[in-house]
């Protein structure tokens, strides 16, 4: 123990200085503030590792390639990035090494097809490690991928479309369209797909069929919508599940809580105690006294470790309690016209773990403690126990009140660092609480008004610049209560906030 205490600061300082150094180097392959969090990742590895390394939603593309939908755990990964105070790449790299060893290749992008296209290119060039397609460097390379890349990636796609039983897809017809397309580009002499970026998906569809049009659109879309991409979710093997047939019907939470706690404990015994194992979603199937079966979901905002929460299982119990209250309320409303003595009791239930993710212990370990003393792990754990999420805000450059800030996830970095002084200082005379939906009001002449400012945001975007002008006032009613109001260019008054 004393040895650990002696060595720990050295390790931290080395680690932090390495981070500082790497932060100073301009990395063209790294994501910048304005980039969206990548929605998908394609991972290639010769070594068999858990496919659920980054997300519980996974598709097996080939023997060595997995696609993961990162969007499901977006907030969690952003929080890890904040907690470790490093780049996204530095968060994912040790996790992927933990699961797949050093020789992995991972491509992050907004659409799975783009991940696969770029992954194939990097495989041909013996690429290793992490590539963010949104970054400037990778985006430039991606735009220069040739037709061979584009067409060869479609070979595997065909087998998935057949397995997916995609509506309207026929292999022979698709191959015919492919050949037609190849002849077309040969005749035109266009070197790369992106040299033909003026052609939109509709025109490709008209000439070369629906599926060629879709592939064309997937290749350049900035959206994370699958848009009929053949996503076949990989089943997570056996789902740990416990059932309970009650001796007597129960509907009181005090009894249900005790029994549920026992069931969570039994559930823990069903899968090997592994610190990597985290749960995203559980299914609670309740059988009512009339044998009606109701399925409800225990979902967690942040991956939840059942084993770590032993023996109380507070987080899971809280979530079950919220669901129970909601369900009982609905049952009471449904049966209010019936002459029943009490709410329909439960006679049996089944608890099943539906979605799991494998997170390596390094994300929770001692060296990953936050340096700025904000323990995001603790906040996330508390948030998992609450029925509503915490609200977190960042300043945004905008003079219109509704555009001057944005809601962000806990621990998220501002999109783009900027000097917020001029924006924030303009808000000091504004109230602390405001109406997101402004209310039209009548302002009588006897009311006191104090002019605050004239405000116009992005007037250059509107056809009539005058329409965007607002004159802001503090309006006092006859009892002296102050509201924050504005008058638009038509002379109409709107209430936008209260000086609480």
């Amino acid at each position, binding site marked *: 123990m004393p040895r650990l205490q002696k060595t720990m600061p050295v390790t931290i300082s080395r680690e932090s200085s390495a981070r500082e150094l790497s932060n100073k180097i301009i990395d063209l392959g790294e994501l910048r503030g304005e980039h969206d969090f990548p929605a998908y990742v394609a991972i290639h590895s010769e070594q068999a590792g858990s496919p659920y390394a980054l997300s519980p939603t996974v598709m097996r593309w080939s023997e060595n390639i997995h696609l993961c939908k990162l969007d499901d755990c977006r907030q969690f990964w952003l929080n890890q990035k904040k907690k470790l105070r490093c780049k996204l790449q530095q968060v994912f790299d040790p996790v992927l090494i933990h699961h797949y060893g050093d020789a992995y290749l991972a491509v992050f992008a907004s659409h799975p097809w783009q991940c696969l296209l770029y992954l194939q290119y990097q495989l041909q060039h013996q690429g290793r490690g992490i590539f963010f397609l949104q970054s400037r460097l990778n985006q430039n390379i991606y735009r220069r991928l040739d037709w061979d890349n584009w067409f060869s990636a479609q070979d595997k796609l065909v087998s998935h479309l057949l397995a997916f039983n995609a509506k309207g897809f026929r292999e022979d017809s698709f191959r015919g369209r492919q050949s037609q397309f190849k002849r077309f580009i040969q005749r035109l002499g266009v070197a790369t797909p992106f040299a033909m970026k003026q052609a939109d998906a509709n025109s490709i569809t008209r000439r070369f069929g629906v599926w060629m049009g879709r592939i064309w659109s997937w290749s350049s879309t900035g959206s994370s919508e699958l848009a009929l991409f053949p996503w076949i979710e990989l089943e997570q093997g056996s789902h740990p599940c416990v059932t309970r047939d009650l001796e007597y019907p129960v509907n009181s939470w005090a009894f249900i809580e005790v029994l549920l706690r026992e069931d969570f404990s039994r559930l823990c015994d069903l899968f090997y105690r592994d610190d990597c194992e985290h749960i995203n979603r559980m299914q609670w199937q309740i059988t009512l006294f009339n044998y009606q079966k109701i399925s409800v979901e225990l979902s967690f905002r942040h991956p939840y470790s059942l084993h770590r929460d032993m023996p109380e299982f507070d987080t899971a119990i809280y979530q079950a309690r919220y669901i129970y209250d909601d369900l009982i309320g609905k049952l009471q409303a449904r049966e209010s016209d019936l002459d029943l003595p009490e709410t329909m009791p439960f006679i049996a239930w089944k608890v099943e773990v539906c979605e799991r993710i494998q997170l390596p212990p390094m994300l929770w370990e001692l060296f990953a403690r936050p340096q700025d003393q*904000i323990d995001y792990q603790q906040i996330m754990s508390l948030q998992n126990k609450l029925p509503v999420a915490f609200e977190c805000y960042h300043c945004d450059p905008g003079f219109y009140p509704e555009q001057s800030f944005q809601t962000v996830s806990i621990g998220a970095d501002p999109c783009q660092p900027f000097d917020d002084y001029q924006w924030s200082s303009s808000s000091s005379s504004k109230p602390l*609480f405001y109406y997101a939906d402004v209310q039209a009001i009548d302002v009588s002449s006897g009311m006191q008004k104090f002019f605050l400012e004239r405000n116009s945001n992005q007037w250059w975007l509107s056809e009539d610049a005058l329409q965007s002008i607002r004159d802001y006032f503090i309006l006092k009613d006859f009892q002296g*209560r102050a509201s924050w109001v504005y008058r638009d260019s038509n002379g109409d008054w709107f209430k936008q906030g209260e000086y609480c």
Partner: protein
Amino acid sequence: MASIPAKFIDASLQQQLQSARTLNCQQLRQEPVLHSGIDVLDDCFSQIKPGDVVEWGIPPGFNGRLIPLQLLKHDIPLSIWIYHHRGLGVFASSWISHGVDLQRLFFICSENPVRELRPLFLEDTFKHIIIDAPRKFSAGDMAFVSQQARKQGQIVFLIRHFFLTQKRGNPHASLRINTWQSGKSSFSLQVIKGPNTGKLTIPYAAVAEDHASYH
């Protein structure tokens, strides 16, 4: 069996009392937990320590929330503001402009906080909890919140949407105070319960930036 500390064995009762007073003085000399940078306000809150509940009387429309906000500006620990105002949401830019660190102050909307957000009071994640005008908050809730605050060393601000009076007291609160903006140039504070009761005034400029157009 517990033994008597050695230094107390031979001492007289008077010496023990003196010793106890010395300990008390040491406690009193501790740095105040809440700090605003406004002398009048800091004097008023100098006795507040972790585990205390402060009750505020702030009716809507009088801009009184700017006063408790002053105590959340300087190096605050993780704090949570639980609010429930009909149709109103947090106007974050205004909070930022008043110097509040929104990396450390979180918000959550609840009309019945003790019932709906029970886990929040059972853990010490947030060292300052502000319960702003809850629609449902019983005497039992008050006792529970106060007990939890003592247990976990948290400071709780309970903001009421009406002015407090001495007729309806609150044994759980160590400080009860009404605040409102009086006129254009100052804020008024009326301490109902605390070490020094009475009325105090804070200039507007000490709380927020002076706006010539408004004054």
